[in-house]
């Protein structure tokens, strides 16, 4: 099946955004090759501002690879080559003159496993603002830490032990700490790579609730293996398969009446 697709020009099935949100990230024909192997065969998608876009698809479909293109995380992988165009607010993020560190401050990332630094809760959140020089005074920094923890719905649980190590928190709290750390540098886009897959259902619900709150201020892209999670938290869903973007559209639409047979087969659990 994949050989046929690679040989014929591939059309993604698209349903436009009924809410007509402005476009935050635009990508055109993004290809990623690891050594000889092409992992993504030309993905074009517009990611809506202040909305949650979910990337779904079976393992190895390219969804995480594509996510990592958006803040140039693939640069760090030896042998990975990215072609095509990705813009953030119409600015080419693969422009050689662009400061990658600055880009990653604008496009934050949260990973599958919570990975707090071996530092205090306070310093975990303060780390980003410090290195980016976002706080002019100690009071400034404290304010950033407190608001970030509040935005991540963690402050009330940790306010009395900010000097304790971040690793002393529960898994769910650690993940929210990582989200607080990501938002402390005031990013515009937050990329989340299976942020709940290591969490229990209650911690997952808290993170999902948080994602829903965060979309008022941030553009969020989430990769998830849980179809139910994608259906719950996102406004738009993109389905990837074998390195192609098969279908993208409003989440409500994709999960009740997908247009592509492969999307239908995947979300109903019929993939061989």
């Amino acid at each position, binding site marked *: 099946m994949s050989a046929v697709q690679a040989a014929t020009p591939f059309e993604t099935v698209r349903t436009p955004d009924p809410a007509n949100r402005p476009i935050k990230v635009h990508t055109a024909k993004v290809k990623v090759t690891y050594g000889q192997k092409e992992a993504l065969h030309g993905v074009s998608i517009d990611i809506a501002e202040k909305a949650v876009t979910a990337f779904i698809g079976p393992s190895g479909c390219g969804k995480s690879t594509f996510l990592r293109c958006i803040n140039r995380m693939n640069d760090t992988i030896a042998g990975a080559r990215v072609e095509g165009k990705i813009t953030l607010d119409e600015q080419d993020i693969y422009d050689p003159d662009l400061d990658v560190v600055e880009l990653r401050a604008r496009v934050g990332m949260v990973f599958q496993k919570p990975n707090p630094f071996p530092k205090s809760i306070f310093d975990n959140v303060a780390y980003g603002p410090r290195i980016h020089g976002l706080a002019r005074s100690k009071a400034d920094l404290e304010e950033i830490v407190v608001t970030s923890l509040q935005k991540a719905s963690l402050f009330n649980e940790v306010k009395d032990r900010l000097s304790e190590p971040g690793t002393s928190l529960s898994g769910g709290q650690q993940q929210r700490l990582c989200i607080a750390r990501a938002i402390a540098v005031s990013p515009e886009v937050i990329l989340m790579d299976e942020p709940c897959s290591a969490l229990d259902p209650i911690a997952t619900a808290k993170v999902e609730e948080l994602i829903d709150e965060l979309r008022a201020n941030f553009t969020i892209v989430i990769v998830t293996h849980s179809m*139910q999670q994608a259906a719950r938290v996102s406004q738009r869903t993109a389905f990837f398969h074998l390195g192609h973007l098969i279908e993208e559209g409003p989440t409500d639409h994709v*999960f*009740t*009446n*997908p247009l592509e047979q492969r999307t239908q087969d995947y*979300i*109903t659990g*019929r*993939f*061989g």
Partner: protein
Amino acid sequence: MEHTVSAYDDDLKAIARMVTEIGGLAERAVGDSVEALTRLDVALAQRVIAGDKELDRLQRDIEDKAILVIARRQPMASDLREIVGAMRIANDLERVGDLAKNIAKRVVAINGVFPHKQLITGVEHLCEIALQQLKRVLDAYASQDDQAAGAVRQRDDEIDALYTSLFRELLTYMMEDPRNLTFCIHLLFCAKNIERIGDHATNIAESVHYVVTGRSYEDERPKADASIASTIAGS
């Protein structure tokens, strides 16, 4: 294509089978109730009344099973539509059973008094079309045939028109001789019940359309029930 989890397929098949079963029961209840009416067969009418319990039970079973599948498997896309469709269709068929039961109860109430045989013919004809509609829409459900469902939906105005003419006829009889009143009113309710059975067949057609295509009909369905506008002066 089959589900990776084969028990999921079994669940969906079981629900579809139960819907087919309740469909068969509803069809038979309607046919029997009208036969009981034309022959004034009280024993048959009693059987229809007693048989309604089975329809109610099946409808509850379908709902329970559907809820369980939703809880257990979080169905998506076509699976979700299939389950929602099955629940809706079972509800419609349960109502069809109630309407048949109501006709049967009236047979018991009329109790042998039968002044105008030719009036029954009109009701019989109405019932034939309603039964045909029911059968066709159940076939459309079983074969997931959207076109066949659409044809059922288009044909409902025929029942409506027939009901309207029957309504006028009964009105005339009632005006002619007040002794006809009881009988005619019972018959009028029977006709109304059959007309409603036709409406349920249309509802089912709409559910089949949703299950198959994921969309709802956007146009208004054809309607020809003018009985509301009929008055004694106008009849």
